[in-house]
């Protein structure tokens, strides 16, 4: 079984985000690129599938700072093939990413393509379903459990409130992983170092980056900083009224 995992790198939210002087994009000069959390789950799910049923896991990452780390870490977990997609991915949208990925993935004869269900910087949908359509494959997202046999994949899809749906998808298919069946495992630094010695990263160039289909941002801004709570003052009665209003505003009443 040939499992492909696509991983995206996103700016680390631990670092303070700033808007670039143009006012319409993030200033990524000092960004720390880390793997999209859901993609980390997708890698884990891929490895789990391999551990259960054999096959190979190929991990694809766009070439950004930290891509090698992501790939070697995946290798330390058990990924077999590491591919870095070359190109200027700084600020590239998911439509472009999906098209570029699709060109590479087409050649890989995938049985199953896993990717994170979303990323925090998605502004034009998520990469998974966009890619699925480029490849004419079915897509199911919000998946938290996968098994595969006989040209079909049986999966669990999450709905709000804890409801799950068991679905059957013909393969090859693209799945948007919400959570792997177990949290992404820890890989000891020594194992990553070992992987650096024993595995190699294939570099492929993205043929083109076509962002068509994504929106154009006119302005980016930070919502009012919540450094300290907005204090609600007054008598208990007044406070209760204000809280009720707040609950309504937040959509719980």
């Amino acid at each position, binding site marked *: 079984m040939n499992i492909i995992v696509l991983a995206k790198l996103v700016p*680390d939210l*631990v*670092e*303070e985000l700033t808007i670039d002087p143009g006012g319409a994009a993030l200033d990524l000069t000092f960004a*720390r690129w*880390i793997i999209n959390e859901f993609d980390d789950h997708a890698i884990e799910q891929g490895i789990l599938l391999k551990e259960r049923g054999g096959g190979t896991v190929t991990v694809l990452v766009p070439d950004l700072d930290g891509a090698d780390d992501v790939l070697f870490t995946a290798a330390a977990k058990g990924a077999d093939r590491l591919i870095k997609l070359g190109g200027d991915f700084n600020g590239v949208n998911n439509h472009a990413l999906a098209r570029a990925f699709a060109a590479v993935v087409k050649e890989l004869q995938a049985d199953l393509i896993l990717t994170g269900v979303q990323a925090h910087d998605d502004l034009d949908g998520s990469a998974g379903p966009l890619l699925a359509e480029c490849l004419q494959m079915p897509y199911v997202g919000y998946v938290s459990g996968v098994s595969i046999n006989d040209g079909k994949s049986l999966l669990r899809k999450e709905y709000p409130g804890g409801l799950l749906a068991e679905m059957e998808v013909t393969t090859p298919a693209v799945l948007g992983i919400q959570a792997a069946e177990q*949290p992404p*495992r*820890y*890989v*000891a*630094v*020594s*194992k*990553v*170092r*070992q992987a650096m010695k024993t595995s190699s990263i294939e570099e492929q160039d993205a043929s083109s980056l076509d962002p068509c289909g994504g929106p154009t941002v006119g302005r980016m801004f930070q919502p009012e900083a919540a450094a300290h709570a907005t204090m609600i003052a007054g008598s208990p009665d007044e406070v209760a009224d204000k809280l009720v209003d707040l609950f309504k505003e937040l959509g719980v009443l």
Partner: protein
Amino acid sequence: MPIRETFWNIPHWAEITQYILAFVTVVVFLYGVGRRVLRWRQGQPDATRRSGHFWRRIWSLVTQVLAQRRTLDETYPGIMHFTIFWGMLVLAVGTALATVDWDVTHLIFGFQFLTGWVYIVFELALDVLGLLVAVGLGMAIYRRYVTRPARIQDFPARSLAWDDLYVLVMLAFITLSGYLTEGLRIAVTQPDWAAWSPIGNAIAAAFLALGDPANQTLHLIVWALHVLTAFGILASLPFTKLFHILSVPLNIYFRSMQPAGALLPARGDGGVKEWKQFTWKQLLDFEACTRCGRCQDVCPAHVSMPAFSPRNMMVKLETHLWAKANGQALHGDVVSAEELWACTTCRACGQVCPAFIDHIGAFVDMRRHLVEQGEMDNLLQKALMNLGRYGNSFGQSERMRAKWTQPLQPPINDARKTPVEYLWFVGDYASYSPTLADITQKTAQVFQRIGIDFGIMYDGERNAGNDVRRIGEEGLFEILVEKNNQALSKCNYQTIITTDPHTYNTLKNEYPWNGNRPAILHTAELLDQMIASGRLKFKRKLDYKVTYHDPCYLGRYNDVYDAPRRVIAATGCELVEMLRHGDRAFCCGAGGGRIWMEEKKVEERPSEARVREAAALAGVQTLVVACPKDVTMFRDAVKTTGSEARLVVKDLMELVHEAL
């Protein structure tokens, strides 16, 4: 002239038989010992030098084996063991002398040295020291079967109870049969000097009525039993817990002469998965364990998780070495991950162990395997990932590391840009924990008031790695060391200071300074120096009655006990010691990475036990600590034990700040 025919009443054939038996015994003994030695040799080479320091090692044997120093730390078990040890030693040597006297010097050279007054002293010594053994054995039997302290119960293997019983029975029997043989001999021969064997003489009196031929026959029978027992003991020594007679002195001799705070580095990747991956010294450690359980009594992890005890770990590991291939895996079947993660690495076990076992080294080696397998709880995993990504367990940006300095005026020097005398390695908790920011700021103010020329590394600093290493993540530790070294190499300084004992320990004992280790001081030591030199003078005299908690990594690991106490005294506070203080201080439970792990349901939290101990001291309102993690742990415990009205937790720095 007082003299004894050693083989009096023993027919020649019995004497010959005895020597044949002796030969067999020696063969069995050597086989048993050889088997042990071969087993140790299946272990890995040890990176620590186990040779060298010859005289220091010999001196350890004198103080710890002959003088039984650690064994005597506890009165009852100490006296019990001391009497048995010395009693048996003298009796064994005496018996050997008597044999040499008769079958070597007398037989071959025709002379005896056990004659005259020498013989009298010899008889008296043996007679009285035999009593010593009897007293010790009595204490041992009473303790094991009547008072039954929890720590020497036979868990985890039932069969060990038989081992314990066997040893006591054999020792009791050899003592008893020895006295009987002596008594019967005296009863028959009635020498003039019989009074010099008071106990033998008293026994003889009891047998006098029996008459001669009966006593002679009885003597022969008892003698035979005595000899058989003696050979039995000797032959079984390498197969029973009596083996500690050999393994403990060896273990003491080969103990690490490095600072206690320097953990053995990982050997290759992956830690210990199977017992053969332990070093030979660790295998010797396991076999040196006498199951005395002193470690268990002082273990904080045992308090929170009674199923865990360093003693049981040693026993289980030792048993595992000798289990025939039964398919049991070291991890999972013998030792559980839960047990391995329970240890706080406080080193209380190692501090009290009369056999000088390094428990923690073995635990960390096994943890290294767990880390390699990614077997850990989610919080610990998150902490390690944060440490890998951001260099701190809080998962915050390194740019936020010095956020606590913002309100301070004048701003603190960046040691990477300005040469400073003192480089302050702030540490994770002091830097990032919002509840500790106040103390960290006060620390800076104290330095400023004293007029110390100091700086910090701002975002260049990383977690020093002490606990990362003890979690078993050696690779991450190496990365942290590397990053800190990069930052340190940009700084111009003379001395490193820190409030964090964990940081202090690893910087001082584990960082590779390539022979250029700077002075490294804990702030308690720094303040102590400043007070001594007159640079730090207090305006106010505090009148609190306080108690002081010795942080494990400052006290036990680095022997800094007096400096913080002198600082406390200088502030005018009255110090009342807890029962467990100094090298016996009871760990707060945060060490060894425990602070990053999920807290399972626990019997009692070590921190709470400690807070109760402090709160129970009459008139003490303040628990003074010298470790940022202690502040966190104990302030929490004060709340959860409902001791807010009784006890306040203060960092040493807060006390100093207040008295300035």
